[in-house]
């Protein structure tokens, strides 16, 4: 599988995602500059962590207008696999590819630590290698990771089995402990925790490989553009 990692000017986990995919999982990975209007021939796209355009307005609020996000939206509409991690999740909600929003952590402080998560659905290209209820310990590192949505949306996410992972110890005040979700077609995923930071035994945690391995072994349905 060939994975494209989008690079916004303020992305800072772009290299980490690239490293996990190419060095830990031995897949092809390439960077896609934010001004690029095409994604090339990639099979999946990762929107990495960071601060896209500085994020002084709202996280991801400017990023959604970038040329690359037009391409990502088209790719997603056509069934392409899109994974937004941390800032990438924020960008996906701003771009309307995922419902809800991410706002400042309940205690107003940045939080960086390892948290236990429960895999809620395994029916997705991002979790099919997990078992239902499996506990993953993944790092979070964000200041605006509190997931919010209206009650109807939250009910719908749960009714349609679109909650990917839930916090067992909620670090940011997210509604219904939601840490990651899917879109209706289940090909777009956003999560605040960082699987790419937990993909190397040297760093003492490989729980992220469950998510990343699911992605690279997923069925690819997107038409390449």
């Amino acid at each position: 599988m060939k994975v494209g990692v989008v690079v916004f000017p303020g992305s800072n986990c772009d290299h980490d995602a690239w490293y996990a995919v190419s060095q830990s999982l031995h897949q092809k990975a390439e960077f896609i500059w934010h001004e690029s209007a095409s994604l090339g021939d990639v099979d999946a796209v990762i929107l990495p962590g960071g601060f896209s355009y500085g994020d002084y307005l709202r996280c991801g609020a400017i990023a959604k207008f970038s040329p690359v996000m037009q391409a990502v939206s088209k790719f997603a509409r056509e069934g392409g696999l899109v994974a937004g991690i941390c800032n990438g999740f924020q960008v996906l909600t701003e771009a309307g590819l995922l419902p809800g929003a991410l706002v400042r952590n309940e205690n107003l402080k940045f939080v960086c630590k390892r948290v236990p998560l429960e895999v809620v659905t395994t029916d997705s290209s991002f979790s099919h290698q997990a078992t239902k209820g499996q506990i993953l310990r993944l790092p979070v590192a964000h200041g605006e990771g509190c997931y919010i949505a209206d009650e109807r949306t939250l009910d719908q996410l749960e009714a349609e089995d679109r909650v990917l992972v839930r916090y067992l110890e909620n670090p940011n005040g997210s509604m219904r402990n939601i840490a990651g979700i899917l879109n209706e077609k289940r090909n777009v995923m956003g999560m605040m925790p960082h699987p790419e930071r937990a993909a190397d035994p040297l760093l003492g945690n490989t729980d992220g490989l469950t998510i990343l391995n699911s992605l690279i072994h997923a069925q690819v349905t997107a038409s390449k553009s």
Partner: protein
Amino acid sequence: MSKITPEVIAAHQLTQSEYDKVLRLLGREPSITELGIFSVMWSEHCSYKSSRIHLKKLPTESPRVLQGPGENAGIIDIGDGNAIAFKIESHNHPSFIEPFQGAATGVGGILRDIFTMGARPIAVMDSIRFGKLDDTKTGIRNQHILEGVVSGIAHYGNCFGVPTVGGECVFEESYDGNPLVNVFALGVFRHDEIFYGKASGVGNSVIYVGAKTGRDGIHGASMASAEFTEESKQKRPNVQVGDPFMEKLLLEACLEAMKTGAIVGIQDMGAAGLTSSTCEMGSRAGTGIEIELDKVPQREPGMTAYEMMLSESQERMLIVAQHGREEELYRVFQKWGLDAVQIGVVTADGMLRVKHHGAVMAEIPNRALADEAPRYDRPHTTPLRTAPLHGPEVRSKDLLADLKKLLASGDLGSKRWIYEQYDHQVRTNTVSGPGAEAAIVRIKGSKTSVAMSLDGNGRYCYLDPREGTKLIVAECCRNLSTAGALPIATTNNLNFGNPERPEIMAQLVESIEGLAEACRFFEVPVTGGNVSLYNETLGTPIFPTPVVGIVGTLETAPPVGIHFPKPGSTVILLGGLGKPTPDELGGTQYAKVVLDQLWGKPPSLDMDYEKRVQATIRELVRSRAVESAHDLGDGGLAIALAESSFGTGGSSQEAIGADIRLDSDLAPELLLFHEGPSRVLVSATDPEKVFALARQNNVEAVAIGVTLESRLVVRNRDVTLIDSRVDALNDLWADALEHLLQDPVLVNTNV
């Protein structure tokens, strides 16, 4: 044009004799712009005029040193064609006036020092000191400063994308009106990627890149060289505002621009921005620089030459580029959305010439600014010290209660509340992060990792600046050795009071000489650093506080942690129980937290023994003959035992404590809490390997007990000194800072 009166000279913090020197060097009266330029370049902050003659005593060379002091950062060879650049710098004064921005721009400044040399920053550590959080008068203010500083560091480092991997945080009355914020940064690059701040090649272009120039931070450097008074609160506009996103763009653009081969020299615009970058680059190359201020990107209209030359707007760099290749650089900066404008040329005459609206506003020899700043051999007598030599007779009523008090204290409690606000993992290199013996960062694409540690101890240095500083170096090296790394080089931040007071100057001199002696002995040459003087508020100086950052290397491998990993292992105290006198308890955390006193002298240090202990633990860790290793430092044996028991395993797992049986004539308070150096607590399944190597290196190794589940028990002969469940201790320790920050009595106090 303003007339240069004695009042104007004094307002620029130049003495009459310094002004006379300006007249001599120029051969005429300076313009107000020139006076401003001299005042910042000759400030203590930029010129090191009080410390320079003593800093020469420091060892600066070894086969690994590629660049010693004098550049933006020191550079050390780490093998495989890789090198690291690292340095520490203070932002004490700005952080007191505006904690958030003061600390944030402190991080920004040191990061620029690293990437201006061509290295990509891969780690930051910070050493921060505040007044006590529970002080009835100043506690609330100190909490506010702590929160501001920590969120400022977090804001800048997290957004920039560099992990904050360690550091230290201390609370002490002495820092009440003068917090210390020292930030260390380290970057990595290849040997052939190193850039210097040199304006070589007459006719080459001088290019300004990055953020626009505004009126912020004017005279920051001279502010950092004055004591705090009631008026300094009005100096708020002197503190700069940081933009980490801009810095991130600048980093990527600079590293990319360096690859074009068109850059001859590059330097960041730090203190005294345009002034220091131009004259220092010119001075290093023996050239002149002529700039036209009309071309400088400006944030606001109507700025004078004086304001532009002294502005400390952040996130700016000065580049000297090969003539004719400017376009290659413009393309890169345009890609990253940054201003890049030619503002001048390199000339042959050695002058800094500044033009504005067609007129020459300043014309000064570069060397006069950069190299001919006054140097003072300030008088120094006996170091300031009022603490008694002998202390009270110490007899504890309840040693367990004492231990709990220590664990819940600001200094010894977990720093989790701080480091969880820092992204300590970004770039996925952090092998050991906050809370570990030393931070370890792997170098991708190489088999080598870099370890680093930051240490200071104002109490020891107050009792004895020379011995205190030696102890800090020993401790810092011990941290690295205990993590399995070989210490190789040092950076330092000397935080002291007013050097014009002979008893303060004496502290500085003694401390530098102690630093020199220890760095020479442990073979960790000093490659750079920073001196921050005038750390006094209303005449009260801080404790003399040298902060030492030492880096080392080791082979990349999963780390040996500080925690006991399993029950049934032998607990060994490498280096022995020590032979402290009661006077050596006077500077310890026990004296501070439990007794609220300060007396005596720092623990005595046998450097030769220390070196052997370190060689031993390094080899034991490298060969994995030990399962855990934790050096004894603040709080002594009892704290090391407790911390080794606070494993971070799954919440369902039982903590692993220890059953310790000691056999010593020492008084229990000394035995448990003395802070004698040269000691490391280890656990091992096969203790014979530890004993054998210790014997071989002529180092004491005492089996003191075994690890066991859930409890920490310490007995000396037949007397039980400590007996507690580990989790009861862990709870106090883990939430120490939260509890201090939420003291309801304080929250309701109006200060």
